[in-house]
């Protein structure tokens, strides 16, 4: 549990872990991710919430820095299902490999571009999280402002 989480528990007299999987997307925007880069992160699924407007996943990652939870965002539930996601495809405790657009600030986390779990892969075809369209095409319009989710 992070320091921030402990503060939260004190503030509202309730463990806040339950909130990991719900509201993050409402406060986030894709502007914080670098869609020009891709990295793959492997770990164990702690939470995998396919929700709107954005999906959120918590994955426990072990690397040289130690063991910790990374938080990922992804496309909406609609895009997940249309990309081939099915209910119960991902469960707590599953080993997962996630291809992400990393955070611009270098922090733990990123925007999900594809993932493989239990031998099945779901990919989002390089879709922009803002327009839902292929990034090259979306960029071609020169639009500087987010046009959607």
């Amino acid at each position, binding site marked *: 549990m992070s320091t*921030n*989480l402990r*503060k*939260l528990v004190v*503030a*509202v*007299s*309730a*463990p*806040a872990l*339950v*909130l*990991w999987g*719900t*509201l*993050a*997307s*409402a*406060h*986030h*925007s894709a*502007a*914080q991710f670098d869609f020009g880069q891709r990295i793959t992160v492997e770990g164990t699924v702690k939470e995998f919430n396919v*929700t*709107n*407007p*954005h999906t959120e996943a918590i994955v426990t990652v072990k690397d040289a820095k130690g063991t910790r939870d990374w*938080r990922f965002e992804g496309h*909406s*539930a*609609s*895009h997940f*299902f*249309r990309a081939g996601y099915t209910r119960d495809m991902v469960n707590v405790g599953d080993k997962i490999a996630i291809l992400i657009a990393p955070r611009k600030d270098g922090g733990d986390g990123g925007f999900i571009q594809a993932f493989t779990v239990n031998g099945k892969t779901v990919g989002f075809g390089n*879709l922009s999280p*803002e*327009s*839902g*369209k292929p990034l090259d*095409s*979306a960029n*071609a*319009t*020169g*639009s*500087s*402002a*987010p*046009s*959607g*989710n």
Partner: protein
Amino acid sequence: MPLSFSAVAKAIAVTAAVAACAAVSAAEPAHPDFTGLWTGHREPGQGRVSGFGGPQAGLPLTEDGKKRIEDYNKLLGPERANPAAYCVDYGVPTVMELPGGYPLEFIQKPNQLTIIYEVENETRRVYIGERQLPPEKRLPSRDGYSEGHWEGETLVVKTTELLDGQDQAGHPHSDKATVVERFSLTKDDKGTKLISYEATLTDPVYYTAPVKIARKYEPLADGFIIPYRCPDEFWYSLLDLRREQVKEGKPGNARMSDVYKAREALE
């Protein structure tokens, strides 16, 4: 010679029958039926169709329009906040450009075309014909009030009562804006049925000239709308917090502000 009762009755009956036939033919002309599920259509090799929802550069903005965009940009913060991340409707006309690439459902009846965008369950009701809400009873909203009529095989929809504000791409429109849309059926080279869509936004406050959008919709291949209920997450989060409180033997009295605090603490 005075008409007999039966002659009068016969005359009335014949007149009524003629009127009834006229009424039937007037009520059921061969209008196109847009009912079904639709998604964005691109011509082969065509990039994203841009219009009002496209680049801000090039729009014929008044000075007030430019200032409105500058002021709004100052409110978006470093994360470039946008309404969809807060589960807010896209609004007319942007919603018709299918931002985010989600499908549309059209449900057509003689006196109403209902348009539901998958995201946010954003719903438009276009009232067709004589039955209209009086102007003084129309509540301004992001989708406004839409009144439709047929011009031949084209459904022409006029939308007013829009809120002064910005769409998802930051484009402003005032509460004096009017959007006129034209819906008609067409086909692509392979004979697939398409909807041809055009919209013209006229706004004397923020634009010096009308702004136009044109695009086409094609049938949705997988044929289903997926439920999209993101505002519900706030309620479930509040319940989660209260459930934890109750589990600890405390009163379940967390507030929505606590949900927001929890999120802030995690960022």
